[in-house]
């Protein structure tokens, strides 16, 4: 009986958490159509999330693309299929590794930063101060970050895709003796418009999730340093899991037919 009660309580807790998150998402989106809008906050968020994430996105994609080329070459050699390196690197980076790795790097860098910043603002009464200054915290803190991440992530993913493919190209041409022109031609021929669209859509969805989780856990942080730490950790874990789950669903939606 106790075990059943425990399972029931966990299920109810999960449903309540989903409900709270859905309500938070709805509230955030509702501010999209309700002025005033904080353009400067949006601009700052674009720079913080987009521009300052470029180095980590670039390095991650570059090394992943290079490692992928080496793996495909050595794996393909078992079936005398070394020549497929350009095609598999391109499809692997654009369809999966580009968006997912950029999403996870953004979860690590941006979600944690947003959660820690907003949670600290909450425990130091800065959120209350915003309210007393007639400024809605969701409008001032949440919407600009979520909107900026959603809009800038497709660009980051596109940059990640290109640098990842370049990493594979560099390894293939310098280490594996591929012909540069043929490599690029194979890459361009093999990628379809759907591959690129799916990559960018995934980027937008992952950006939305990453920023939303940071804001949600920051706004719902408990008091004290431990509360801030817990909010930060939970936000990154939740963002990473939701990004991976969303990636599966989007892949299913785009490519299962």
């Amino acid at each position, binding site marked *: 009986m106790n075990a059943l009660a425990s399972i029931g309580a966990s299920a109810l807790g999960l449903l309540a958490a989903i409900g709270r998150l859905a309500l938070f998402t709805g509230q955030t989106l509702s501010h999209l159509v309700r002025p005033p809008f904080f353009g400067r906050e949006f601009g700052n968020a674009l720079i913080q999330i987009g521009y300052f994430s470029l180095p980590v996105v670039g390095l991650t994609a570059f090394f992943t693309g290079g490692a992928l080329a080496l793996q495909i070459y050595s794996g393909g050699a078992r079936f005398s299929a070394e020549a497929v390196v350009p095609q598999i690197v391109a499809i692997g980076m654009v369809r999966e590794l580009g968006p997912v790795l950029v999403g996870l790097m953004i979860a690590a860098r941006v979600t944690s930063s947003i959660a820690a910043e907003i949670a600290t603002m909450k425990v130091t*009464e*800065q959120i209350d101060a915003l309210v007393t200054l007639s*400024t809605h915290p969701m409008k001032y803190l949440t919407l600009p970050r979520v909107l900026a991440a959603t809009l800038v992530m497709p660009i980051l993913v596109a940059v990640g895709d290109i640098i990842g493919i370049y990493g594979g190209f560099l390894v293939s041409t310098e280490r594996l003796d591929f012909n540069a022109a043929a490599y690029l031609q194979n890459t361009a021929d093999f990628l379809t418009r759907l591959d690129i669209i799916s990559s960018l859509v995934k980027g937008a969805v992952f950006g939305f999730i990453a920023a939303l989780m940071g804001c949600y856990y920051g706004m719902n942080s408990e008091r004290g340093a431990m509360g801030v730490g817990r909010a930060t950790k939970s936000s990154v874990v939740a963002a990473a899991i939701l990004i991976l789950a969303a990636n599966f669903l989007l892949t299913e939606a785009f490519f299962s037919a």
Partner: protein
Amino acid sequence: MIDLSAVHKTFGTNAVLRGVDLHVPKGESMVVIGGSGTGKSVLIKSVLGLVQPDSGTITVDGKDVNKGDRDAFLARFGMLFQGAALFDSLPVWQNVAFRLLRGSLKKPKDEARAIAIEKLRRVGLTGDVADRLPAELSGGMQKRVGLARAIAAEPEIIFFDEPTTGLDPIMAGVINDLIREIVTEMGATAITITHDMTSVRAIADKIAMLHAGKIRWTGAVADMDTSGDPYVDQFIHGRATGPIEAVR
């Protein structure tokens, strides 16, 4: 002006406010005293709508604080938070002029900056702190910036939450004098929360003591020493023994 009637608020199993009744007339400086954790901050946050009471009514000029235009309502208030609550990412002048840079009170940037610097001067800070970030200021300076922000839009009602906590006696005296001057000069209605009896005597017209979730005693500051209430006597003299338990 500000009326609280039978206000109750419970957090989990902790009943913080258990039927608070309080009246603060226009232009009066009311100081709420009471031990730590007795719900003083919850009380003023309830007036501002930052905390929703479980029951009871709170009105300002006869209007329920939870009904009507929130922006117009909040535009009447200024608040100094216990830890100043300055926005870390904004320079000092933008903290002070926050309300003047956005929303219904928005002014041109140059004008907002000039007002911010004037308010900083009013609280004894020179213009050269205007472009610094809050983290670059001492605790006393941050408190004064918080005070400047609270008065920047010249509100009718100002709340001060522990204005001298963490300050040395001289800086505490400076802040007390500033609050008294500002309240008198602006004709504002003020509610201050403090444990600091020096602040109480410097700032208050009237005093309300909050104990066990209710207003235990209210009276003029001049009557505080002869209140005849053992709870008030113990608190204002800082005695460890008496009706208020030291271990709470």
